């Protein structure tokens, strides 16, 4: 699987600074007093249970949630002053795959805010889109309907849409959710490549072992930041207990930190399995 090595820079240059931020929706805070600094070239995974504020964290950087206190800077400028130059890739399950658009049309959307009030795009926009499609190896699919692509290709198409505005930071909401192991591997390698091309990446994930453990930096969230750092430092039983409110075990395999659960045996064979102490066998 993947062992990304983050792009190394000679000095740390903060690109996203979240300073004492409390934010949420309709007057209800979801994240409380969050402090986080992401440096240029970082590749960060946000971990946490459902409702812990992972997506809210991404949306706060986009300026799409109510900030009750604190401030967020992108490239040193407050997001209240200027729209941040940030790319966003939503969860693919939110996409209407029956919508009549081709890959090229989807990617061109990323240039809309730079275009004139006319139905067609400038040649320079088309050139940028073509270059990104080539870079992500989907140029040959540009005239295909989005539904005709594989999971990995679909993710590439939406990554391309976010990249055509040349963002310094890329935010991805669960880019590997619901895809098979091969597609997940493909997506993570692609993100790793982009990271090495000077794109700072912040992504949410539910997959601790197959995704988060491979990233250089992990942030555990549960309404606030529980811990942040390298997986081997962050993925500890104590941190995971605070994050998920569950007893999880941590082990190592070939230098990689892996999180495991206590063994459970469900179903009709539970009584005949190794789990002789199961609830089922006690009653039979």
């Amino acid at each position, binding site marked *: 699987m993947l062992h990304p090595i983050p792009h190394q820079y000679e000095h740390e240059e903060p690109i996203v600074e979240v300073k004492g931020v409390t934010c949420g929706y*309709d007057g209800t805070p979801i994240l409380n007093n969050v402090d986080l600094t992401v440096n240029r070239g970082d590749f960060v995974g946000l971990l946490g249970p459902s409702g812990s504020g992972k997506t809210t964290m991404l949306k706060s950087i*986009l300026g*799409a949630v109510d900030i009750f206190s604190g401030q967020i800077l992108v490239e040193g400028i407050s997001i209240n002053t200027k*729209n941040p130059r*940030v790319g*966003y890739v*939503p969860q693919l399950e*939110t*996409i*209407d795959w029956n*919508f*009549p*658009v*081709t890959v090229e*049309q*989807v990617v*061109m*959307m*990323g240039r*809309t*805010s730079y*275009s004139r*009030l*006319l*139905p067609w*795009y400038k040649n320079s926009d088309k050139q940028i889109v073509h270059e990104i499609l080539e870079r992500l190896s989907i140029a040959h699919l540009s005239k295909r*309907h989005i539904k005709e692509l594989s999971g990995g290709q679909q993710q590439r198409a939406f990554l391309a*849409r976010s990249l055509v*505005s040349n963002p310094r930071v890329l935010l991805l909401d669960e880019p590997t959710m619901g895809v098979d192991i091969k597609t997940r591997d493909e997506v993570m390698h692609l993100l790793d490549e982009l990271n090495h091309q000077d794109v700072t990446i912040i992504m949410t994930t539910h997959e601790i072992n197959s995704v988060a453990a491979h990233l250089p930096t992990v942030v555990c969230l549960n309404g606030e930041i529980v811990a942040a750092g390298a997986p081997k430092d962050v993925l500890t039983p104590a941190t995971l207990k605070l994050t998920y409110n569950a007893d999880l075990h941590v082990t190592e395999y070939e230098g990689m930190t892996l999180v495991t659960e206590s063994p459970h045996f469900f179903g009709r064979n539970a009584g005949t399995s190794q789990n002789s102490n199961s609830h089922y066998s006690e009653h039979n």
Partner: protein
Amino acid sequence: MFAPFEYEFFIRGIVVSTLVGALCGLIGVYIVLRGMSYIGHGLSHAIFGGAVVSYIMSINFLIGASIWGFLSAMLINLTSRRGKIGADAAIGIVTTSSFALGVALISKFKTFTRSFDAALFGNILGVTDVDVIAIVFVGIVSATAIFLGYKYLLFTTFDPEVAQYHGLPTGWIDTLFTLILAAVIVVSLQVLGVTMIAAAIVIPPVSARILTNNFGTMMMLSVAIGGFCGLGGLYVSYYIDISSGPSVVLFSATLFFLTLGYSSFKELIRNLGVRN
């Protein structure tokens, strides 16, 4: 075959019906793709209330009903944004209340001289010169706005959340679109009637969607199908002597089922080809 074209009223009617059909087909693409099919039905009912109020207050019907329709659509948006109420429920509440107000006013003020049957089911013979001018004006303004804003409307229709993050003024785009929709429904009322407009808005784009996977092609096909249904529906209504609204809708529905049959047949042939 050309007998009806000997009458001036029929020629005017068929031009108006074709224009209204094409206009509904144009706006319908965005309505269907935004998952708002029910709003066409609801807004036409709401506008009926506005039409009655305009009549009682001696306000020009086109202006009064357009403002009423626009405000109803904005009220639906506001209500559904409260979070606990879905858009479908908000449409049900706002538009039915408005329709009920119209009916209540009609029964209260029994001095009405206007034919509200025509408002409900459409009457092409009642189309005046002012109506024709209004249809042409709304048609030109709507087509120009949709032409110029094509990219913006496409992005906000496909992915409104991300369009907002890309700096597009999604709120303004939605407001402008709502205004256009209300105006299109108002000018279509006389031809199609309150109860028939929804079908004229939904059937052409759905038929076009069956035929293509490309957004631009879908728009052109939808306009063509809508215009053709307006023309064909009115032509048929002359011979079978029914109101223009139901005739256009039944003509559209027939075309839709033919399109569906053609598409299914094509798929069957393709599948058989793959197996062999």
